[in-house]
């Protein structure tokens, strides 16, 4: 697959798995494509994923070792697009600003760089989906450890029971509960 096709496939799967309350769902798939095109440069982190024989993505796990720089670049690239969408689709500006510029829990503010990004799997492939996610999660942690990571943080919408369960069962400790609608976790490695 070409890089463009990979970005398309990853974004398609990511978009499909978002809950209706997720801001990215409002902002559209093109912003998710930007997310993966930056991440695939591997300057800030890496996306671990698995595809089936048709090239459809089964699972994704993103890991960052320079999350702050990634976020800066992502915002620089997407800001014009975001404000265009605010005007065109009347997405609440307050909500977007809250999401993009919101404060993080104190435990994370000074330790932002090592982050677990989007994680998920499709249910179209039976048991292969969750096993594939666990495999990519394990690869992500090893990748972060190789970048001298000794902690990693992650967040998920409070309502996302599966992701909350995945993080807490994998020894992530909650450091911000229902903080701007999300739960924040840290794992010490």
């Amino acid at each position, binding site marked *: 697959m070409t890089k463009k096709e990979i970005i398309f496939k990853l974004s398609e799967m990511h978009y499909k798995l978002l809950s209706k309350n997720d801001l990215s769902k409002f902002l559209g798939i093109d912003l998710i494509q930007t997310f993966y095109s930056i991440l695939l440069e591997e300057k800030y982190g890496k996306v671990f994923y698995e595809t089936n024989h048709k090239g459809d993505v089964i699972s994704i796990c993103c890991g960052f070792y320079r999350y702050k720089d990634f976020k800066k670049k992502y915002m620089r690239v997407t800001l014009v697009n975001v404000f265009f969408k605010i005007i065109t689709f009347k997405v609440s500006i307050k909500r977007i600003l809250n999401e993009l510029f919101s404060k993080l829990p104190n435990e994370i503010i000074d330790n932002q760089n090592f982050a677990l990004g989007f994680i998920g799997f499709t249910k179209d492939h039976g*048991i292969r989906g969750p096993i594939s996610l666990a495999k990519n999660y394990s690869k992500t942690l090893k990748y972060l450890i190789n970048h001298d990571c000794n902690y990693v943080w992650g967040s998920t919408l409070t309502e996302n029971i599966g992701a909350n369960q995945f993080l807490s069962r994998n020894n992530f400790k909650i450091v911000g509960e229902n903080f701007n609608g999300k739960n924040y976790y840290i794992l010490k490695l």
Partner: protein
Amino acid sequence: MTKDKLNNTIINAMKNIALESGTELVTPFDNQTELLKSGLDSMGFAVLVAQLDEELGYDPFVMMEDPYYPTKYGELLDIYFKYFPES
């Protein structure tokens, strides 16, 4: 590790994950039990494989060259037993 001990480790992990999700494993539960009808939902299996990696120190699905995915509990146990690192 004996296969019995490994079996106990996996089943205990599955029971705990089911319990935390407010469910329980189906009865009877044996080697023929289909994984996706065992009482754990699909996210539960992601949790199980990641947790066993932590507990046992290996993930057979990362180690295998040709990906193979079990459908029944007995197949899952066989995979973990086959790839158990020799001391």
